[in-house]
């Protein structure tokens, strides 16, 4: 079996309770269960996580890199959208 027959899975790791799952890489695997085990073996060897998500890479729809000017550039001069003028209490972490 050539490895190209195995689908690619994107891996998301929650580093600790309360934090978001973050994309950390990808693995090849024949099915979802093995993808989770491969992700565990490849990406959590050094206590990186407490939870893993895997998603078939071909199930992710991405924005077009060529559409960057119309999608993202218009936000550049809208500084008033940033909540940077508020002081947050210390108890509010991870904002």
């Amino acid at each position, binding site marked *: *079996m050539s*490895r190209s027959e*195995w689908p690619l899975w994107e891996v998301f790791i929650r580093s600790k309770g309360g934090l978001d799952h973050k994309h950390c890489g990808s*693995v*090849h*695997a*024949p099915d979802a*269960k*093995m993808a989770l*085990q*491969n992700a*565990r*073996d*490849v990406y959590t*060897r050094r206590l990186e996580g407490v939870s893993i998500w895997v998603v078939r890479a071909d199930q992710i729809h991405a924005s077009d890199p060529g559409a960057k000017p119309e999608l993202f550039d218009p936000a550049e001069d809208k500084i008033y959208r940033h909540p940077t003028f508020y002081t947050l209490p210390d108890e509010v972490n991870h904002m």
Partner: protein
Amino acid sequence: MTTTTAAADAAHIDYVLRLADSALILGQRLAEWCGHGPVIEEDIALTNTALDLVGQARLLLTHAGALEGRDRDEDALAFLRAEHDYRSLTICELPNEDFARTCLRNFLFAALQMQLWPALADSADAQLAAIAGKSIKETRYHLQHAADWTVRLGDGTDESHARMQRALETLWPYTAEFFSPTATDAQAQAAGVGPAWSSLAAGWEQAVLPVLEVATLKVPERTPFLSRGKEGRHSEHMGHLLAEMQYLQRAYPGAKW
């Protein structure tokens, strides 16, 4: 009385060495996959398992050295003993052959460890009980991963099924050794060190046979063949494995890094 105590102590050490050496030798075999896995993900998975087993062996060898009281540490026991001093199960030293045999052996051995660790949790030997408590989490994962591969390869393509069936026919006779009664088992059980391994056969089969059935594999008939690695009588493969494993400590005694 002294003779009885000495025999019990020897059985205790022998029992711990059997656990230690089996983990050590299988860990050494699995380490051979490093850089040779069928895919990078599985290369790392096998290496992780190897490291877990070597870690278990280190704790157990250190403990055996302390019980023995001859000033031998984990390195002395791992690298400076002769072949007939190793108490590992013969199945652990057999060549990897292919990915199917590697996965199936991991499955059969992890299923044995999964019988042992819970039974050792209330050992009269507190250190052994602690090592068992730490190791069981690792072994639970080894068993899951190996069982999943056993099913996928057994119930996979014609090629993977044929390789898995061949692996089962090769390895199955060596599992008789897991449960063959020995004097060490009887004494360890009497002293509360741990169960006689013969008492684990039914639980092991209950764990193993359903997975082999789902994997569509045909379990061979039992034969009179009985390997005796746990008594120090090893196969022709052991000497080669030790020559490689012990090379550095033999060539550079006391080398550290």
